[in-house]
């Protein structure tokens, strides 16, 4: 476990070192947050810090405890504002990373489930699909015009792509396409 953590840390260090030598990728953002997320976080954290500093300034200038309660309340409010900003910033980044990971890496469990359903449909005792329907669906792969790779219809990289054509492997290969590295058709 510790070795894995060290290896992961080393790989991220190497990635950061390599990043300096490579041009910035145009396709993706350099970090999970957008500029408006950054503005919101800086504003909320900065506002919280300023409110705490101002509350301390006015609280220290008061002579009695009851007069200091107002600044104390303001300081707690500033802490809450900055906390909400911090949590919102982290949740936004976590959601962006999760969405990208789901788009890139296929859901292996759902792929296995689909395969199980397909094999159950082929069993003699189960309800039989129309003759050759499963085989035909298995034989057809999808790709967009001008794309270099073809995918299984259920591939995570092909979901939500309207207008992609269904063709056989041979037709895709004649068009110069190669199999997707994720779904491996």
């Amino acid at each position, binding site marked *: 476990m510790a070795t894995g953590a060290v290896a992961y840390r080393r*790989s*991220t*260090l190497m*990635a*950061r*070192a390599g*990043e*300096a030598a490579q041009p910035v*990728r145009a*396709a*993706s953002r350099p*970090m*999970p947050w957008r500029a408006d997320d950054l503005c919101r*976080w800086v504003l909320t*954290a900065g506002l*919280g*810090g300023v409110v*705490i*500093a101002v*509350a*301390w300034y006015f*609280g*220290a200038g*008061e*002579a*009695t*405890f009851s007069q*200091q309660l107002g*600044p*104390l309340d303001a*300081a*707690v409010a*500033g*802490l809450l504002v*900055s*906390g909400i900003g*911090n949590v919102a*910033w*982290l949740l936004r*980044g*976590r959601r*962006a*990373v999760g969405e*990208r*990971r789901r788009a*890139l*890496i296929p859901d292996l469990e759902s792929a296995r489930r689909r395969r199980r359903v397909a094999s159950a449909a082929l069993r003699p005792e189960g309800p039989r699909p129309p003759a050759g329907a499963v085989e035909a669906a298995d034989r057809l792969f999808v790709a967009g015009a001008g794309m270099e*790779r073809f995918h299984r219809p259920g591939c995570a*990289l092909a979901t939500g792509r309207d207008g992609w054509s269904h063709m056989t492997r041979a037709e895709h290969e004649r068009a110069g396409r*190669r199999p*997707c*590295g*994720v779904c*491996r058709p």
Partner: protein
Amino acid sequence: MDLRTWLRLQWDRALAWVFVAAGAAALIVGWVGVSGNAYAAGQLPYVISGGIGGIFLLGVGATLWLSADLRDEWRKLDRIEDALRDGSTDEAAAL
């Protein structure tokens, strides 16, 4: 890897450590100030500056540290996407 290179590559974690250290120092100073003062009116400014201010700094430091982890994961997804685009599935599997 020397310190300057580490700071350039891990600036977010270095900044997080600075905030965490400042927060811990503020908490200690606040505790010393409160314990050395017999009156509530004299203690409250230390509670605000040392206590609440220290928690604020610790929160910002923790956020920066967790942001660095998310950014690392984002870069790793960059490399996976590059590997998939280049077709080197072995490299993607290794990632």
